């Protein structure tokens, strides 16, 4: 118990810091508050996106996700309201900013997307072959539902638990992968996210070591303006690795979860922008 209390201390400090935004804010207000106390060129680079954020197309995706979440669906005709995202069955407020986390029922560290698929299988009876799970990216059930769930953590500080040894192990592997150069271009995640204010073409890149800009980088789901679609964390992982000319990463794999575990930890204490809007 004593040890647990010690572990909780830095978390409490983080929550007491001004980094924690007012949960009543909209995503654009959360971002504006970050911009007001930071000099990050990454946060302010796109006047276009800052304007568009005030009318995010993803607001409609949240509404669609809420309907899908509450509707009895699948062979078992059940809703997802009994799904445990880590804070107890049906508790969505603040659940996403505390993921990935260890789940005793699966014995695994899971991120939002893999946990959602798990509940759709166990509670609703869907299988990998069903459209509801098979269609990962785009205008899909998975994207709509995760956007609804994630929005319940808007403005809250990222706070993924690091109590279970597996949570630490996965974060450690994610960090290792972050620096792991491979493929025909010798790229690693750190190639683009290891320095401040650097640009790739016209885009300012976020530095993983600057938490108040990194929080925007890991704030998924986000509406990708160039894709005309809402994208999730798994999509971001996949697309970066694709641009890095490495192999195709498997959606929901533990490799992807490890990367997400590390990147979420690097934003610890900073308010999540959910849903965000990106280039």
């Amino acid at each position: 118990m004593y040890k647990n209390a010690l572990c909780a201390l830095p978390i409490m400090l983080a929550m007491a810091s001004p980094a924690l935004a007012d949960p009543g804010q909209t995503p654009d207000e959360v971002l504006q508050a970050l911009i007001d106390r930071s000099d990050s060129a990454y946060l302010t680079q796109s006047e276009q996106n800052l304007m568009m954020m005030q009318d995010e197309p993803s607001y409609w995706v949240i509404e669609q996700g809420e309907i899908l979440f509450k509707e009895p669906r699948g062979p078992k005709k059940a809703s997802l309201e009994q799904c445990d995202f880590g804070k107890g069955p049906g508790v969505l407020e603040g659940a996403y900013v505390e993921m990935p986390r260890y789940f005793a029922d699966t014995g695994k560290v899971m991120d939002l997307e893999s946990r959602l698929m798990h509940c759709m299988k166990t509670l609703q009876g869907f299988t990998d072959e069903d459209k509801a799970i098979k269609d990962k990216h785009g205008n899909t059930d998975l994207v709509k539902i995760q956007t609804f769930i994630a929005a319940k953590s808007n403005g809250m500080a990222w706070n993924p638990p690091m109590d279970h040894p597996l949570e630490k192990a996965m974060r450690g592997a994610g960090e290792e992968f972050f620096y792991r150069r491979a493929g025909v271009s010798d790229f690693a995640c750190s190639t683009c996210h290891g320095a401040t204010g650097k640009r790739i073409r016209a885009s300012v890149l976020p530095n993983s070591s600057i938490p108040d800009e990194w929080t925007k980088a890991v704030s998924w789901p986000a509406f990708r303006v160039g894709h005309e679609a809402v994208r999730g964390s798994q999509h971001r992982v996949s697309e970066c690795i694709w641009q890095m000319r490495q192999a195709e990463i498997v959606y929901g794999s533990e490799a992807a979860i490890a990367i997400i575990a590390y990147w979420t930890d690097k934003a610890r204490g900073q308010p999540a922008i959910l849903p965000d809007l990106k280039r």
Partner: protein
Amino acid sequence: MSEVKIRAALKDGKCEVKALLTHPMETGRRKDPAGNLIPAHHIQTVELLHNGNLMVEADWGGAISTNPFFSVSLNNVASGDTIEVRWVDNKGETSSGSVKVK
């Protein structure tokens, strides 16, 4: 997939109406991967009605973005009023949606 999504919110004495339409908005100048011109297919006229009264009539060309978004504001709107948005495109297709102001 011709949804019309509308939000109408009373704020500072006026009603801000935001609408998101589903439409490809082809200009007629784009080419498909085989190099053939994709024919123009875009919304031409959008109407916004408040309790059945025409308030905004907009003419659009193909340079409005795909899946168009627009917002306008109205005075003299009360909670419970109906806001309707409808459009017609250059092929004569049409769609509409309505919402009650909260």
